[in-house]
């Protein structure tokens, strides 16, 4: 089976003032389609940086990031935007729903950007809301939802366009532990039923424990 994500000797350094920070120092990693994988590691180990590189939100300083055979270093910013729109689903630590839009509108957002007709959007979101157990909340604004509900809307948004991979940076960090495991179970279920690849990061051993595969990071390197 072909690798969905391939990282080859990936380096990423930031310039913080006069100081150079090496956030990722030579990472080699392969993720296959359909995996349910976790990035684990202490704070500052490079989890966010790595996810941003894979999601095309950031460019590697050296090495290659190849997603679905596409070398992201060769992409323009417009191409990267289109790549994210077509191939990547994002889930964020603090949900990042658009506050003025309803739950349904938030979940439909990516589909709208893709110019999917309203009827199709509607049908797709109905199914996802059902699977995620948030049916009936469609008309609520993010402010009127609990953290767990907000993050489920965010999962629906990420899944709506049937991306190749869903990248989730600490999706449970702002949730209590019960809600967190519930969310993970839902993600796992979507992974099993729809075959969507998931790559998520976490500090939480309980969350990490639910992954099929764990990639441990320390100081920007993968450790076994």
């Amino acid at each position, binding site marked *: 089976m072909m690798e969905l994500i391939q990282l080859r000797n990936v380096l990423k350094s930031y310039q913080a003032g006069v100081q150079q920070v090496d956030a990722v120092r030579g990472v080699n990693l392969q993720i296959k389609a359909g995996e349910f994988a976790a990035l684990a590691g202490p704070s500052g180990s490079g989890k*966010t940086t790595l996810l941003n590189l894979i999601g095309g939100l950031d460019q590697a300083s050296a090495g290659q990031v190849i997603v679905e055979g596409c070398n992201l270093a060769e992409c323009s910013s417009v191409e990267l935007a289109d790549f994210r729109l077509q191939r*990547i689903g994002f889930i964020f630590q603090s949900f990042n729903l658009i506050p003025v*839009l309803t739950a349904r509108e938030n979940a439909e957002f990516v589909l709208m950007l893709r110019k999917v007709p309203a009827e199709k959007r509607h049908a797709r979101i109905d199914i996802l809301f059902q699977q995620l157990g948030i049916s009936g909340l469609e008309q609520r604004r993010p402010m009127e939802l609990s953290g767990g509900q907000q993050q489920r809307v965010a999962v629906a948004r990420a899944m709506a366009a049937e991306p190749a991979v869903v990248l989730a940076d600490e999706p449970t960090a702002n949730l209590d532990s019960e809600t967190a495991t519930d969310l993970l179970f839902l993600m796992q279920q979507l992974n099993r039923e729809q075959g969507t690849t998931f790559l998520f990061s976490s500090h939480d051993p309980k969350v990490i424990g639910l992954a099929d595969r764990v990639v441990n990071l320390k100081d920007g390197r993968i450790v076994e």
Partner: protein
Amino acid sequence: MSLFRLAWYNLWRNRRRTWITLVALAFSIMLVQTSHNLSTGVYSQMIESGVRAGSGHMTIYRSNYLETRDEKLGFDPQAFIHQLKSMEAVETVLPRIYLGGLAQSSRESRGIVLSGIDPALEQSINPILKRLPAASQLPDTISRKALVGDRLLEELQLKKGSKFVVTLQDRQGEMVSELLRVHAVVHSGIRHLDRSLVMIGRQRAAALAGMPDEVHELALIMKNGVKDIPADEIEALLPANQELNLYFWDEAMTNLANAIKLDYASQQFMFLIILLIVTIGVVNTLLMAVMERTREFGTILALGARASVLHQMLFLEALILGGLGLLIGTFFGSLATWYLVEKGIDLQNWIAGELEFGGVVFDPVMRAVWEPLWMLKIGIYVISLCFLASLYPAYRAGKIVPAESMRK
């Protein structure tokens, strides 16, 4: 869900700020529209009373009389004056003579301008004469009765009914004199006129100057004011061999025309400043909205939106803001214009004495006129300015780096 709705919601996120910007926008639009409509009304009032007291909507002079005021440049209008009068657009044609001379009473003497007019024609047109009661009008074109400016009367120490002598040079260069009688006192409100004006019948004046049947000026009063003057048709009626020239009111009365032009130019400058300030307000509102939403815009970009999506959203926000401001502003601008058209502002409550502008005394009740096309034009300007105002905020929004915006 559309981008438009998103933009609409976004605007109302900070209600107070949006309302303040809207009120500023609407108020400026109202101000600009109303003051334009009012000044256009006042200018046309000025032009109308100016041309009626002065040289008409159009004027015919011989050769360069307009510049030289050479009394020898008279002409005989007999051959074409009736044709002019019978033109559809022409209300009336006023023949006039102007002669420089000296007026002497038993005590004083003063330099004067002796105007010869046709009282029957003038009294219904000329605002100076209109104010006089019927008994004070000149009886005919030949009598010795004279209308005298109030200041001149005072300086010559004359009274109603007093006699005085006017001396001037006739066509042959001879000094000639005429005994006149003060029939009534006129007051134009224009200082130099009131101290030099002596008005008598045109035939008496022409006879005195030895230029019977000749005039210096033909003032054409049009039915439709300064609009749609058939200058070419009028021109065609003038005989070719008399060196006659046709002038528009603004060529013949450059003082008034220039005063209006200057006034309007300074007003337009004010409009520009007002609209500029409002534009800066819109830029500020949008820029603040972008800064507050860095994280959200970062998210939208991360989800795969191109920068152009954010650009469009901000353009829409600016257009909604501009459109709403325009609607509200035009509503109140129309209300104010309506009031000023119907009721006007009576300046007599504010200013004592005559209102003189560009050598013309005008009606103390200022009235606006409707200028819908101009209001539309301002609307287009405002919308374009709002569009311009969104360019920089949109640029900033498009430059947000998603990864960084979300780290904060």
